[in-house]
């Protein structure tokens, strides 16, 4: 149980800057997910917390203690590797107890600690086996057991589920979440999987090219992305980006969509953006998640002023079972909507949709930042 503070941390290899000033701060028991594409520096940051990479500048603190120059074994952290990194020559029991063995604990103490962890992870029957005799999921559990046995202040996970098959991945994801709820230890978890990030994190740090793009709870990252990169990285299908102009109609502020031969459309905003005056008449990008565009339902629309009705041609339907992903044409731009299969749209025909403007985001087309 500990706080973790990362203060303006940088990493350079020669002239190449991998991390360009990272600031993150975790309170006790938080579950931080570092999310980003490969090469964004998330694993480097994790290795720096672990002490496997040196810190070029800035400082990392665990419980207010600066750990920059502290040896990994003295940082009170434990790490689970993507490859599991189980020692092939040792039994499962010795793998789990190895860190205690290195710390000079007695055989009896080690055995009881190993038993406790094995019981927690339900791997008691595997203790005498070698890693080569285990399945992928079992190896994953042993790797977690090796981290758990020391009862560290911070757990570090480096893409721990990416070597598992799809079903096992989902199961282990839930298991990690349960484990965190039970133990309440601070966790830093690296992944490139947005679902893992959304389901596990108490806060997500989305990284790109060595910079944290947004550091916020999952729901906030999803609903109010800091920029277009974050908006497009999270969510599937990705958020619609509709080009338009910020305009006023009467006393209402909205996004005007240029017409391609057809009538121009005005989508009134539910809440005015900050610095609305500055953006009036300027080009903006309207970001709307597919699930915010649904089939028009007059009774629902009547009760919610944020819902705006639009009629559009339906281009393509992609049924996924639970929802039907629908590609529609809105003022010459292709927009994705998520509708219920029971709405029974027909490809090539016009249909009425409603857009929930309370869930709209506005972005600056040049800087791609949220307005």
């Amino acid at each position, binding site marked *: 149980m500990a706080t973790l503070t990362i203060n303006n941390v940088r990493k350079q290899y020669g002239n190449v800057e991998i991390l360009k000033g990272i600031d993150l701060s975790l309170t006790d028991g938080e579950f931080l997910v570092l999310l980003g594409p490969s090469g964004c520096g998330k694993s480097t940051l994790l290795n720096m917390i672990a002490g*496997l990479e040196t810190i070029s500048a800035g400082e990392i603190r665990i419980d207010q203690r600066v750990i920059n120059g502290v040896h990994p*074994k003295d940082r009170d952290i434990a*790490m689970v*590797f993507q490859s599991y*990194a189980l*020692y*092939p*020559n040792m039994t499962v029991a010795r793998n789990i107890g*190895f860190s205690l063995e*290195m710390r000079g604990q007695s055989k009896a103490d080690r055995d009881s600690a190993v038993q406790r962890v094995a019981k927690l992870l339900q791997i008691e029957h595997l203790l005498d086996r070698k890693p080569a005799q285990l399945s992928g999921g079992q190896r994953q559990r042993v790797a977690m057991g090796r981290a758990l046995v020391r009862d560290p202040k911070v757990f570090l996970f480096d893409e721990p589920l990416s070597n598992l098959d799809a079903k096992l991945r989902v199961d282990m994801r839930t298991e990690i979440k349960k484990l965190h709820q039970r133990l309440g230890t601070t966790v830093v978890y690296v992944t490139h999987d947005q679902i893992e990030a959304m389901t596990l994190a108490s806060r997500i740090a989305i990284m790109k090219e060595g910079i944290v793009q947004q550091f916020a709870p999952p729901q906030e990252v999803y609903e109010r992305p800091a920029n277009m990169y974050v908006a497009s990285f999270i969510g599937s299908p990705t958020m619609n980006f509709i080009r338009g102009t910020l305009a006023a109609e009467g006393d209402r502020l909205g996004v005007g969509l240029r017409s391609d031969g057809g009538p121009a459309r005005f989508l009134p905003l539910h809440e005015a953006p900050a610095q609305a005056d500055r953006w009036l008449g300027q080009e903006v990008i309207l970001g709307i998640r597919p699930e915010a565009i649904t089939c028009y339902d007059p009774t629902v629309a009547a009760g919610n002023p944020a819902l705006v009705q639009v009629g559009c041609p339906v281009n393509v339907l992609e049924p996924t079972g639970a929802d039907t992903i629908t590609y529609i044409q809105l003022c010459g731009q292709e927009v994705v909507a998520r509708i219920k299969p029971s709405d029974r749209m027909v490809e090539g025909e016009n249909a009425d949709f409603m857009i929930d403007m309370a869930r709209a985001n506005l972005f600056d087309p040049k800087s791609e930042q949220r307005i």
Partner: protein
Amino acid sequence: MSSLTSALPPAEGMGPRVARWGLYLILLLFAAYYLLPLVVMVSTSFKSLDEIRTGSLLSLPRDISTDAWTYAWTRACIGADCRGMAPYFMNSLVIVVPAVIISTLFGALNGYALTKWRFRGANVIFAMILFGSFLPSQVMLLPMAQTLGFLGLAGSAAGLILVHVVYGLAFTTLFFRNYYVSIPDDLVKAATIDGAGFFQIFTKIMLPLSLPIMVVTIIWQFTQIWNDFLFGASFAAGGAQPVTVALNNLVNTTTGVKQYNVDMAAAMIAGLPTLVVYALAGKYFIRGLTAGSVKG
């Protein structure tokens, strides 16, 4: 026949079968060609001198006699010293065993440091070590003689051990380095976090994983050092000479009647240990050479 044994269509006609037997015949001829010297040596070593004089080179011994072996082992004259090959055989053992162990362990340590604790210039150092395995051994004679003199080890078994360790390090480092490259770095990272240091990781994790390459290295080093003649002849004095030098002296300094059976027995004695090592560890040798290509 069935698709279980082969997906290929069955051979048709006599053509392929004749070709196959022809192949076997050629292989047999090659095997005989290679085995013949050994057969002559073994059979001659069990003959009496009379039989050698009267019989043919290729004939098998009529009465098997081990006299030549005991004579070569205990009484043959090596130069002026008539105690047989035994003391020189022991000399070789005293040199080979520590030299093999030390050079193998240091090779493993080098390979470990070069792959898992990559320091600035590691590749340059490895390239230089690698270069050492291309150096002809004659190049080392003079500088090594000076070094041994300086260290006060000239003419001793300890000096020869040092020579073999130094010369062998290039090879053993190469073997272990290439093997350790295939062991994932994450193991070392995990062990570091678990609290193991440089030597603990080496002894508790790397060495236990090294059995295949260790067998290869031991066979290689044992054969090289046991069969060495040049260093033994150059750096070992009189009673400290290894068995290869003793064999040469025995064969070259006999006066009077040439005792072919004793020469052959002595040569067999000098050559047996490497044969035994191959016979015992040969299958590990093949496995070790192909190790690393398969994920552990």
